[in-house]
């Protein structure tokens, strides 16, 4: 196999690894390089992604988490759109415009419009909507990945969170959001609907989920259904 072909294939493999991979894509492996021992991280150089552990997790701050770092990850984590009420927790030194919950969108992906303007009633999050350690950490990771344009990675981290807390509607909310960003509006709607079944007695979260459903239905060419969902969102 000639060299240019090898490198072309390697580049293809790399790109297909980064981009969303199509079903049935054939794995191509650079033939020249032996694989490292097993999968040990210590031996791995360039593949190691940036540190994923959130450096500072605002404990007991409800769903809003500050993730210090680059511009891409400077937005607070919000597992569902913040209402216009006060944000729980410390949100220092960051532009206040971010606090309003504009989701970070990656270049090249359809942006997810913030859903706050749909008339969600104000009010801080109830105590029971605060997330605990592992889920919060994974949502933070997912937010960083989404901010860096790695929607597949974000999706993967959120599914990890879902395995830890399968009945946490905020995880389903974020997963629906990422699916929407990935262009899978049908799954976004389904995940939001699943979230609703766990969001009983949490009106602002319900409103957020209905807002997502409205967007997803719009993307699927169902304006009537979207209007209906928006009405549900407004009614909470």
């Amino acid at each position, binding site marked *: *196999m000639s060299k240019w072909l090898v490198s072309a294939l390697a580049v293809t*493999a*790399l790109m*297909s*690894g*980064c981009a969303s*991979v199509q*079903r*049935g*894509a*054939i*794995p*191509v*492996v650079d*033939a*020249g*390089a*032996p*694989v*490292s*021992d*097993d*999968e*040990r*991280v*210590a*031996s*791995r150089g360039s*593949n*190691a*992604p940036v540190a*994923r552990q959130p450096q500072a*997790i605002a404990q007991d701050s409800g769903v809003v988490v500050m993730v210090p770092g680059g511009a891409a990850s400077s937005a607070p984590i919000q597992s569902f759109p913040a209402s216009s009420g006060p944000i729980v927790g410390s949100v220092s030194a960051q532009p206040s415009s971010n606090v309003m919950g504009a989701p970070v969108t990656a270049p090249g992906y359809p942006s997810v419009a913030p859903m706050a303007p749909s008339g969600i009633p104000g009010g801080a999050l109830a105590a029971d909507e605060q997330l*605990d*350690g*592992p889920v919060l*950490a994974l949502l933070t*990771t997912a937010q960083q*990945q989404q901010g860096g344009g790695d929607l*597949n*990675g974000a*999706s*993967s*981290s959120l*599914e*990890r969170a*879902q*395995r*830890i807390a*399968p*009945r946490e509607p905020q995880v389903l909310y974020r*997963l629906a959001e990422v699916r929407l960003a990935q262009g899978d509006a049908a*799954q976004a709607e*389904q*995940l939001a*609907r*699943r979230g609703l*079944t*766990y969001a*009983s007695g949490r009106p602002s979260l319900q409103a957020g989920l209905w807002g997502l459903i409205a967007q997803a239905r719009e993307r699927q060419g169902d304006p009537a259904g979207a209007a209906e969902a928006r009405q549900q969102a407004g009614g909470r």
Partner: protein
Amino acid sequence: MTRSRSPRSRNKRRASAPHPLLGWVVKLGLVGLVVLAGFAIYLDAVVQEKFSGKRWTVPAKVYARPLELFVGQKLTKTDFLTELDALGYRRESAASGPGAAAVAGNDVQLHTRGFQFYEGTEPARRINVRFSGAYVAGLSQGAGGNLAVARLEPLLVGGLYPAHHEDRILLKLDQVPPYLVETLVAIEDREFFKHYGVSLKSIARAFWINATAGQLRQGGSTLTQQLVKNFYLTNERSLSRKATEAMMALLLELHYDKNEILEAYLNEVFLGQDGQRAVHGFGLASQYLFSQPLAELKLHQVALMVGMVKGPSYYNPRRFPERALERRNLVLDVLAEQGVVPAEQVAAAKLKPLGVTQRGSLADSSFPGFLDLVKRQLREDYREEDLTEEGLRIFTSFDPILQLKAEAALAETLKRLTAGRGKGIDQVEAAMLVTSPESGEVQALIGSRQPRFAGFNRALDALRPIGSLIKPAVYLAALERPSQYTLTSWLSDTAFSVKGQDGQVWKPQNYDRQAHGNVFLYQALANSYNLSTAKLGLALGVPTVLKTLERLGVSREFPAYPSMLLGAGSLTPLEVAGMYQTLANGGFNTPLRGIRSVLTAEGEPLKRYPFQIQQRFDPGAIYLVQNAMQRVMREGTGRSVYSQLPASLNLAGKTGTSNDSRDSWFAGFSQDLLTVVWLGRDDNGKTPLTGATGALQVWTGFMRKADPLPLDMPLPDNVSMVWIDPRTGEGSDASCPQARQMPYIRGSEPAPGSACGAPAPAAEVMDWVRGWLN
């Protein structure tokens, strides 16, 4: 070298000796030389082509789910230590480095190895886990900072091997443990770093030793020659092969440096046979023998492996431990003699046991049932060569702890049944599936009553009549019509017969051959009454029930015969799990998955198998069916579970028995586990088992070991709990002694009852339903 130098010397000789006879010799010599040069050029091409290209194909590696650690996680210390043992963690008094763990009371300190996952790298780090009861109570890292979540590296559970079954874990020279290279050189080829591929000194020494001993004792092969032999040549022993080998060794040394040759040797060398699988290279051998990554090995382990190079079968430490120990200590002595390792260290190493794990813990025969599922899902997306050659890393949802519990429950139950029921059980085969209802992930799979032997995978391929397992579909179809049916609708359980389209008369019977008169809808399901169920199904229409089955996730098509209502149709255990998953997951269907993601050999993300759901039913209707299925366990055909499980554990499920007890089924779920069990004979013969006396017993045994979370579906908005009189189904006051709560879809509940004693007014809805039924 060979090509350029020799012709020049011959040319000189020809010039100095112009004899006519010599001319022919020279000419012949020239021809021979041209042939030799041509052969050398050919060999050179062979050497370079194979060595510079992809040297080895590596089978795809299949990993179990990584064990997640976080505060509040349900995990016992025992299960955790089982996982650590499977991963080859060394027990030490204080975790000294990656792959070590120290246990002190309820605290486990460990140093994880780190791993490359699809969504990122898990660093190798020191963590402390504190257990309290069946839960993780504390998680901190290093010096003591709290840790939100961490995961262990996943257990390697198998590979996808090509026809020749050659397996290896490729490694680089900088990943080898101390003393490996030194020991290898000291034992196999002392002159390695000095010679040019062949060593005259070694040959002379071998010749001397063989001559004095009078037999072939020692080969003079260098490491390079050994590599050439294994890499390029066959096992044939002849002089011409030996010459070719020497030439190729020289050529290899000409083109590549010592380190490259050494690295290739470390990966190529054959170190054992594991069933059908050939274990190549020190990387895999380390996993195979010690369940540890090569870099973590200590001197005594290194010495054992290097000693095995001489004869991997002869010195197999599992089969011939004494022989292997002797060889290892001999290797250690040589190291001391040559001054490679200080004598005290050698003495200490010689005191150590062999340290090999019981069996090759990553043997591909370990979990053949689950691997079969993985292979089938992968073959939909990849070519066979990609799976067997590209070293892909397949991340699955397989949970080895649950698998071991499922296997133990099956074995124990079969043993008990054999003791209690005698011969009929011997020929009974088994299949079992454990999934997570919320994610649709398959966590454990058994395809045979001997789960470690590959063969007919009944969990995927046994297509058997499901019997009463179909009934939840019938009742779900009914409960989706709240204006017609509630859990307390009256059904008539009386004998009847219908004429089918083919002219045959269908006359169903109850298992106990009795009719039960008027029963509540939920009672008919809980007790698995056939007559009332068949009547209900006929009233709904067979196509309606089959449509419900399809919406539950069953893609198989069935003819709309009345007998379908009692489960004459056949499904595989996997399909049953898919159907019950929708019931367990609030009416949301999820395709069952065994694979999470695929990485390339280099750790690059390649493919994900994302979580996908689709709402197929109103959560209210599902809530009612789940309620009835809980009554199966509390008061119906599944009630024997509570003789073994605590009453606080809410469970839902359904028994299934086909005609003449040919199939014994149970499918049921807790909040976090969905389990399907099938027992039956491969020849479809009769068994002494019903769903309750066979499959349910295995199911119960597993659930007891797995200690699941109680089922607790959130009350849907359109469902309300209403106090009723359990005898009449009419509304009752909460204060009445007999009153119990029953869920209803809003609008279908009976009118509220008056205080106790007074006759309750007949509810209009109930009248309506009764009128409709009669």
